[in-house]
């Protein structure tokens, strides 16, 4: 039977489409309701890619920006050095072993508990109970005891002097102060009962994986923030975040990996949105594994340095949102303002270096020496879009020199496994950033925890570099310390083991109504206290 026989003239399915359209016209009603609840004056709608998680300040699993909002430390790290925070002032004994802090009077936690020297002592006791977790801070090995002789005096006794002591006390964790009432029987290592600090904001609500609400701390001892309420939404997808900003559902996107350069570039001349870029926070680099037989030749490493066009990467991949990097640490990093001659982009020089070192060009366009072909792997984190783009660019560039580069992207955790175990020829890496650079990240070079250890292992001067780093940490003489940093950084630079690419920056994209958006010394701190909305 023919189907056409069944086909008579009937009202065509336009009816259906009409129904769908009628239904969709009701949608704005729902949508309107949802939005009305979100838009209150003096509320800043911020966004993050994941939940605030566990904000226990003595452990590491929470979002740092949120911990910075709620908690405070004894000292702050400002652009010109240390600033008083919960400690009004401090004294260091002449032998550098006893730190005496005068605790600020009248400060209370948001639950009403006074934040006096006893509360500080309770915090230190809780932190020291879990000492093994914090041994990445060198001071943990040297701290002998703490005491609180009266309500406003707190003392730390060290076995040896240790210069980055105040910096380590100033980093968000583990030395931020939580209300002793929020601890579980005086302990924090197995979790806390509530997230209660002394900071400018307090946490009032969290809906896991959806949003968190912070409100200004009415009793804050310092300058009170102008924005009274902050709602942090969780939007994991980069593109959706930008669409939410466009729609006006959020006011601010802020961070290092929250925005890609292409998206940022699109808003460069926008009237509705503004962009802000921080000073360098950390260095994006490629680590060369000195144990690889090809890379063991310092001439090869230097040739790779000269063959890397950092300016092109900064412009082409990052649209100038990350400046080209000349050295392992930016000059703005403490102790790193030293004169090191950058490896200038010079393909001819790179080719000469290889030629002189005996790496002869083969018929297939790949150099070789004593039967060893110049074939290297470049490992990148496949979750990072930019690393792949840079890798492809470098593959092409290095190829011109007769170096065959094969690219391999691995999911983040296996990428990190490979890095730690030295299973790479060349690998992308980002240094720790402020305030951990240079002291903490260099201290970690001495252990097999990151790629640095494996990469440096075969260097002839590895022992000297490690010895210098060890001496730096206990040196009390500022001049000697600078000498040692200069020594270690110069050796690492001359060894050409790190190819610096760009200086990573914090980036912000925000509604142009929002003013005062900026950055601090600590890369994870979002300075909400300085932000405000322009009056319409």
């Amino acid at each position, binding site marked *: *039977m023919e*189907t*056409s026989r*069944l*086909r*008579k003239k*009937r009202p*065509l*399915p336009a009816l*259906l489409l009409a129904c769908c359209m009628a239904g*969709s016209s009701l*949608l*704005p009603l*729902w*949508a309107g*309701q*949802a*939005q009305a609840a979100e838009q209150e004056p003096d509320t800043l709608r911020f966004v993050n890619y994941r939940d605030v*998680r*566990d904000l226990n300040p003595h*452990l*590491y*699993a929470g979002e740092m920006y949120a911990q910075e909002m709620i908690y405070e430390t004894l000292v702050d790290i400002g652009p010109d050095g240390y600033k008083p925070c919960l400690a009004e002032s401090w004294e260091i004994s002449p032998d550098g072993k006893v730190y005496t802090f005068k605790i600020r009077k009248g400060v209370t936690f948001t639950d009403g508990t006074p934040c006096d020297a006893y509360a500080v002592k309770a915090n230190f006791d809780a932190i020291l109970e879990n000492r*093994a*977790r914090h*041994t*990445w801070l060198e001071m943990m090995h040297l701290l002998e005891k703490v005491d609180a002789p009266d309500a406003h005096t707190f003392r730390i006794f060290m076995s040896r002097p240790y210069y980055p002591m105040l910096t380590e006390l100033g980093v968000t964790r583990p030395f931020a102060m939580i209300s002793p009432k929020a601890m579980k029987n005086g302990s924090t290592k197995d*979790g806390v009962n509530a997230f209660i600090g002394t900071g400018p904001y307090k946490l009032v609500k969290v*809906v*896991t*994986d*959806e*949003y968190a609400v912070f409100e200004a701390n009415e009793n804050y001892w310092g300058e009170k923030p102008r924005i009274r309420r902050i709602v942090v*939404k*969780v*939007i*994991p*997808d980069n*593109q*959706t975040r930008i*669409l*939410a900003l*466009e*729609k006006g*559902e959020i006011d601010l996107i802020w961070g290092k990996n929250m925005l890609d350069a292409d998206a940022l570039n699109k808003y460069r001349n926008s009237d509705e949105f503004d962009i802000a870029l921080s000073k360098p926070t950390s260095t994006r680099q490629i680590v060369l594994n000195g144990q690889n037989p090809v890379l063991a030749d310092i001439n090869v490493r230097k040739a790779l340095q000269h063959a890397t066009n950092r300016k092109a990467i900064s412009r082409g991949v990052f649209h100038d949102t990350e400046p080209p990097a000349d050295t392992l640490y930016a000059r703005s990093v403490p102790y790193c303002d030293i004169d090191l001659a950058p490896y200038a982009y010079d393909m001819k020089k790179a080719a000469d270096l290889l030629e002189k070192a005996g790496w002869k060009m083969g018929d297939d366009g790949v150099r070789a020496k004593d039967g060893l072909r110049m074939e290297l792997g470049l490992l990148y984190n496949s979750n990072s879009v930019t690393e792949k783009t840079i890798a492809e660019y470098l593959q092409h560039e290095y190829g011109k020199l007769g170096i065959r580069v094969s690219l391999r992207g691995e*999911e*983040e*955790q*296996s990428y*990190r*496994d490979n890095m730690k175990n030295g299973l790479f020829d060349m690998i992308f890496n980002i240094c*720790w950033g402020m305030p*951990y650079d240079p002291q*903490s990240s260099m201290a*970690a070079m001495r*252990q097999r*925890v990151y790629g640095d250890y494996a990469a440096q292992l075969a260097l002839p001067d590895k022992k000297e570099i490690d010895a210098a780093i060890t001496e730096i940490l206990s040196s009390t003489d500022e001049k000697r310390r600078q000498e040692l940093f200069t020594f270690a950084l110069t050796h690492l630079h001359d060894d050409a083991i790190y190819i610096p690419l760009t200086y990573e920056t914090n980036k912000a994209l925000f509604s142009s109504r929002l003013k005062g958006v900026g950055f601090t010394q600590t890369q994870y701190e979002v300075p909400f206290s300085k932000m405000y909305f322009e009056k319409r």
Partner: protein
Amino acid sequence: MKNYVIMRLLATVPLLLGISFLCFVFINLIPSDPAEVALRIRQTPVITEELIAQTRAELGLDQPFLVRYFQWLWDCLHFDLGVSYTNPARTVLGEIGRCLPATLELAGLSLVYVIVLSLPIGFLSAVYKDTWFDRIMRGFVFATTAMPVYWVGLLLIWLISIRLDLLPTSGYGSFAHLILPAFTVALSYISTYIRLIRNNMLENMREDYVLYAQARGLKQRAILVRHILKNSLQSCVTAIGMSIPQLIAGTIVVENVFAWPGVGRLCIASIFNRDYPVIQAYVLLVGVLFVFFNLAFDILQYAADPRLRERKA
């Protein structure tokens, strides 16, 4: 009938055991040490060998594989799915309980979309075969099957939320938040079912019983709806039954794009974070759903279709 149901229910026990064991094996084959990854996820700055050993002991990862499996199975039978490796303050059951309702809402509305849209469109496409309507719908089916969900989701946000300013871009809360993600999930299923219904209808139209019905002088409308559509829907019902667990398990990408706090996002995060207990629980959940829906729809069909019962007898 009773025997059939009992037999089928008994058969699910070894099936679920097999699923859980295989899942345990495969999860353990994922590279990277879960204890070390848990420390990284907890953002421990310097992870020493001692710390890894300590964490392995805390998480019970220092036990041999089979001991761990049977321990897990034993706990499972007591409704204890363990705690998350990356956040030991959270139980796996609590996490699934927190995320599942959102995913069920999403899958539920998607199912409504699938049924409400594909049934009439498939039906009309068959009835009006080769007209402009059928051609447009075939084009639609072709295009939506080919488009990746991620991209469709972003396009919909751009069009509906930004350009037309009708709905919120993402998030969870009101019914308005649900419309776009549910439609995105439903889209590829809608295409599949439109095609399935259309083809089944066209096949049935060629059957003798249609000719016979016409000879009996039945109205066209009655033939189409009561005979052809009814017969065409049979295989669709089974397919839809199997689609329900697929809808629940297939929301991962959409949940990520629309910031939807469901089990899909939980699952993807736990895979990246090597959070074994959560992955294991998710796989078990999806396994149970598939087995259950398969069983339920088999029984339903068995009860509804006299031919099946006769054949069995």
